[in-house]
C-alpha cells in the first residue's frame, strides 16, 4: 500500500553546511509519527523541507505517491497542512477568520455557506465555538494552538505537519492537544507528523518515533523499540531509566553520577 507521506533519502544544506542527511521514513494514513531529538538536530528543517518551504538538495518527498516538486503549491496545500511552532500572536484576525483561512486552497474570492459550515464544525471539534469572535492574539497559548489546529482541520488534508505544538503548554493542555491529534488520525485517517521535545508525551501518543541526531536518523520504530536508555545516552547525552510498567514506555532522567545510588 502507498504511504500517505514518504520521505526518501532527503538531504538539505544551508550553503555548504549539510543540515539533513539521508532522511527516509514513511507515514501511513491514520498514523502519528513523532519526530524527536535534541535542539538543533534538524526537526524543524525537516518539517519545512517536507512541506516544501525549503528546497532539499537531494532526495524526494512523496504525497500519496506523487512527488511534491511536481505539484502546484495549491495542490500541496490541499494534501498537506502545516501548524508552525508559534503562530497567531501577530495576527489581528478573529478566531473565525483565522480558521476560515484554512479554506484558502479551495476559495476563489467568495466564501460559500459550506465553507462556513466546515469552519463551524472545526470550531466545535476543537471546543472553540465560544471564542469564535475573539481576536487570536488575545487568547492563551493553549487556545491559540487549538485555533491553528482547527485551521489545519478545515484545510481537509490527508497529512498534518506540526512543529512542536505543545512546547509552550502545561501538561493538561499538552495532553488535550495530543488527544485531538490522535483523534484526527484515528477517526479521519490523517497522517500526523509532529515534532516533540517531551519524549514521554511522544511515546504515549505516537505510533512510531523517528529519533534524529545531528541531521541524521538515529532510530525509527515503535516507542517500545526506540525509547531505550542507550538511545538517551547516545542522542541526548543523559543518563535515564526507561520504565515499561504502563501501556507506553516512559523515561525518568537521573542526575549525573546518581544512577547507582538513587535509581
Amino acid at each position, binding site marked *: 500500500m502507498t504511504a500517505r507521506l514518504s520521505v526518501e533519502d532527503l538531504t538539505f544544506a544551508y550553503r555548504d553546511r549539510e543540515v539533513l542527511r539521508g532522511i527516509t521514513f514513511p507515514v501511513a494514513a491514520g498514523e502519528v509519527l513523532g519526530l524527536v531529538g535534541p535542539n538543533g538536530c534538524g526537526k524543524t528543517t525537516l518539517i519545512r523541507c517536507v512541506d*516544501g518551504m525549503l528546497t532539499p538538495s537531494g532526495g524526494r518527498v512523496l504525497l500519496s505517491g506523487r512527488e511534491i516538486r511536481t505539484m502546484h503549491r495549491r495542490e500541496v496545500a490541499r494534501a498537506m497542512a502545516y501548524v508552525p511552532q508559534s503562530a497567531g500572536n501577530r495576527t489581528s*484576525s478573529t478566531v473565525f477568520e483565522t480558521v476560515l483561512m484554512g479554506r*484558502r486552497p479551495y476559495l476563489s474570492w467568495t466564501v460559500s455557506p459550506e465553507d462556513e459550515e466546515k469552519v463551524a464544525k472545526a470550531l466545535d471539534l476543537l471546543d472553540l465555538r465560544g471564542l469564535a469572535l475573539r481576536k487570536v492574539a488575545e487568547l492563551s497559548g493553549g487556545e491559540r494552538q487549538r485555533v491553528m489546529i482547527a485551521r489545519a482541520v478545515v484545510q481537509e488534508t490527508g497529512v498534518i505537519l506540526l512543529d512542536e505544538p505543545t512546547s509552550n503548554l502545561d501538561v493538561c493542555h499538552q495532553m488535550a492537544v495530543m488527544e485531538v491529534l490522535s483523534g484526527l488520525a484515528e477517526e479521519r485517517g490523517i497522517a500526523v507528523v509532529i515534532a516533540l521535545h517531551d519524549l514521554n508525551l511522544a511515546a504515549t501518543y505516537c505510533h512510531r518515533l523517528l529519533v534524529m541526531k545531528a541531521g541524521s536518523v538515529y532510530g525509527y520504530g515503535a516507542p517500545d523499540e526506540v525509547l531505550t536508555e542507550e538511545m538517551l545516552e547516545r542522542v541526548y547525552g543523559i543518563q535515564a531509566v526507561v520504565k515499561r510498567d504502563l501501556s507506553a514506555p516512559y523515561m525518568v532522567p537521573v542526575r549525573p553520577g546518581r544512577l547507582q545510588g538513587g535509581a
Partner: protein
Amino acid sequence: MWYSFVEKNSAATTGASIAIVLGAGVAGGEFLVIGNAFLFALLAALAIYGMARYRGIGSETMVLAGIAVMYLFSAVTSLLQYVGSAEQLQAVVFWTFGSVDKSTWPKLAIVSLVLACTVPYLLYRAWDLNALAEGDEVAASLGVPVERSMMVMMMIASLITAVIICFTGTIGFIGLVAPHITRMVIGGDFRTLLPASGLVGALLLLSADSIARSVLAPQVLPVGIVTAFLGVPFFIYLFLRRRNA
C-alpha cells in the same frame, strides 16, 4: 506596508531634489520634478527587490532593506539641500510638505488609470494577502506562492505609490493611519480592508485639505502638515484605546 511607503517617499524626495537643485532629470518642462520623483520611487522599489532577492524574501528582510534605502536617499537629499541655494532649499522643503494644489484633470486621469489597472488585481488576490498577513510560513502552507506574490504585490504597491507621490509630493501619515484605523473598525480581511482603506484615506485627505484651506484663509497650509496634526494623535488615541481594551 507603511515602510514601503516611507522609503519611496524618501526616494521620490531625492529625485525631486535633484531636479530642483541640479536641474537634471529624465523629463523636461513641468515634468522635470514629477518624472524624477517617479523614477526614484521606482528605483527604491527595485533596490529593495534586489536586496530581498539576494538575501531571500521575507517581511523582515523587506523592512530592513526599506529602512536602509530610506537612510541612503535621505542622505543624498540632505547633501543636495546643503549645496543648494536658499530658494532651492525652500522649493525642496515645500515639495516635501506635499500638496494637492497642483492637481489637474490630466494628472488625475493618469492616477485613476493606474488604480483601475491595479486595484482589481489586488482585490482578486485578497486571500493571498490575508494569508501573507499571518506570516510567510503559514501563507506557503496555505498554498500561496510566497516569493512571487510578495514581489508582485510590492511592485504594484510601488507603482501606485510612485505615481501618486510624483504628482502630490509627500503627504505623510495617510498611508500609515488610514489602513490601521480601517483595520481596527472592520477587521483584517483584505477583501473589504483594501477598498475601505482607500475610502478612509481619501476621506482623511479631503478633510485635511478642507482644514488646510480654511484655517488661515486666504492662505493655504500644505496639506501634509494638517494630515500629521490630525492623523497621528487620532491614531495614537485608537492604538492606546485598543491596548487598554
